[in-house]
């Protein structure tokens, strides 16, 4: 359009000058310019009648796996001499192969196809805008259109394989599973001794105790193992996030959440997910592979957010989680979170906090300096204090330096079981 205006303006000025100066040669100079305008008008494109369809080789992929996008444009109107097709690629994606824009000509009914491969980081990516610009051969007169071909591409977070995560909630579900149920019955671990009842296997009789309390017989009891409810809470508050070199701390939190969800679900537990940030994104608890998919999809779209309501953890809706179930909070933590977590623990929830360490993470992005070293030291002391306050309240903590493998960090922290955790029946 600007080209057209420039040409029009030049013609106008030359004509005015030619008339004002009564100069034939000056008026003659306008002829080629006017001819340009006439040619543009004569060969300019008519109304655009284009349709676009898009297909993806896969609509859900793990992070890093390429996806092939195929965009087909069909001209259902008059012929177009020059068409520039530009498929708008969302910021999260990167074209690694092929072409996402094309310059071509389209005869009536003709179809052209763009094929390219993209790859990107975790996210719920919306593809769908195609910009088309048709112009005459001289590029003066053009028509533009935006075609919509909405498609969603889920790039799922990385799931790290974890060894068994030991949890011990106060309440379990009715079905057999791997979680100690704090109830006597059939199982593996010794639970206690009770009086013999008809039907008890003879090999369960505790002869030593029975000898001491003759004539009664006593049998051993074992701790039942069942499945349980696990509520995962991912902290997506912007104030707790840190930006590092090319990756945010929140991304590590998402990876940890995905891995924990997969680990708990693979053991048969019922798992729900709450993403707590700018708003509450709740994935209702469920079992199995379908639930794993639901959680991964929710995590794919998880983003940090800001909200005055959810600035602190005070508004975690406990009605979402069954009473006395296992909660796992994945959060870098703030000072004012302690009281809320202690309150949750006091309500009977068994609480585990997986905390990606923000101090080491941020320190890596700073230039080494005595002042920085001192600040890091002070911040670390404060964090240690915070974690210790949680541990004293009976909350299990995993202090995760994100450059160490999550599985190792998890098992190093959980292998040091506190005395209250080891004791059977202590609540």
């Amino acid at each position: 359009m600007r080209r057209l205006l420039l040409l029009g303006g030049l013609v106008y000025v030359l004509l005015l000058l030619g008339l004002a100066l009564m100069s034939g040669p000056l008026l003659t100079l306008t002829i080629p310019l006017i001819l340009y305008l006439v040619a543009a008008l004569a060969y300019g494109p008519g109304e655009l009648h284009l349709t676009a369809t898009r297909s993806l080789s896969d609509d859900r992929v793990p992070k890093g796996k390429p996806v092939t996008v195929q965009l087909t444009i069909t001209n259902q109107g008059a012929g177009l001499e020059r068409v520039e097709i530009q498929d708008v690629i969302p910021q999260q994606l990167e074209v690694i192969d092929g072409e996402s824009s094309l310059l071509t000509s389209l005869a009536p009914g003709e179809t052209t196809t763009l094929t390219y491969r993209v790859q990107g980081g975790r996210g719920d990516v919306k593809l769908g805008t195609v910009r088309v610009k048709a112009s005459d051969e001289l590029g003066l007169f053009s028509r533009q259109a935006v075609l919509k071909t909405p498609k969603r591409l889920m790039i799922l977070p990385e799931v790290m394989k974890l060894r068994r995560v030991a949890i011990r909630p106060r309440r379990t579900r009715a079905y057999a599973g791997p979680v100690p149920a704090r109830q006597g019955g059939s199982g593996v671990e010794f639970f206690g001794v009770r009086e013999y009842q008809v039907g008890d296997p003879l090999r369960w009789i505790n002869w030593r105790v029975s000898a001491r309390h003759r004539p009664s017989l006593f049998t051993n009891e074992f701790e039942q193992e069942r499945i349980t409810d696990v509520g995962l809470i991912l902290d997506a508050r912007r104030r707790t996030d840190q930006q590092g070199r090319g990756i945010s701390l929140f991304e590590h939190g998402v990876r940890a959440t995905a891995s924990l969800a997969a680990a708990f679900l693979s053991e048969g537990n019922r798992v729900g997910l709450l993403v707590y940030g700018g708003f509450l994104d709740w994935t209702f608890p469920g079992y199995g592979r379908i639930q794993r998919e639901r959680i991964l999809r929710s995590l794919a779209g998880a983003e940090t957010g800001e909200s005055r309501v959810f600035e602190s953890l005070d508004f975690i809706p406990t009605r979402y989680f069954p009473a006395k179930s296992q909660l796992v909070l994945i959060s870098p933590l703030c000072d004012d979170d302690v009281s809320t977590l202690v309150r949750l623990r006091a309500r009977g929830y068994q609480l585990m906090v997986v905390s990606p360490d923000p101090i080491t993470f941020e320190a890596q992005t700073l230039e080494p300096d005595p002042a920085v070293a001192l600040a890091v030291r002070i911040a670390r002391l404060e964090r240690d204090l915070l974690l210790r306050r949680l541990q004293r309240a009976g909350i299990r903590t995993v202090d995760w330096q994100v450059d160490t493998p999550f599985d190792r960090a998890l098992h190093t922290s959980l292998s040091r079981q506190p005395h209250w955790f080891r004791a059977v029946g202590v609540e």
Partner: protein
Amino acid sequence: MTATALIASIIAAASALMLAYALGALLLPAAAILFLGVTWVMGQRLSWTWLARLMVGLFVVTAAVGAVLDLSTVLLLVGLIAALSAWHLDGFDRQLKRVDAVDQEQTLQRRHLRRLLLVDGLGLFLAVLALTVQIDLSFGLALVLGLIALLGLSRAIGFLRREGS
């Protein structure tokens, strides 16, 4: 192909205008035109996207001044048409570089250059014809014709803008 045609157009525009001024014994403006031509070519090499728009304006102004100074109109016309072609080819060249792929690139470029040559040739022919054919008009008639031309042009540009948006 387009890039070569673009450089050739710039050289042709600068040479024709320079020759017109040199034949009129205006050597300093001729040197200035040479400088403009060299700047335009350098600007193309350095991908200064804003330069073509400025240069086409300057070349048209130079041609207009030459016409007022009664220099060789044919040379001025050649210079003006070549400058217009260079400006246009610059836009086309940038479009070719902007997209990832060009469907049947050679055919597209050839067709494009053919259309451009046709318009340029027709423009030159009509302009030379206009210079050759002499019709005596009274001042009033010339004024009326001029006003009609201006009005028609305004309407045409208005129409193009509406259609373009």
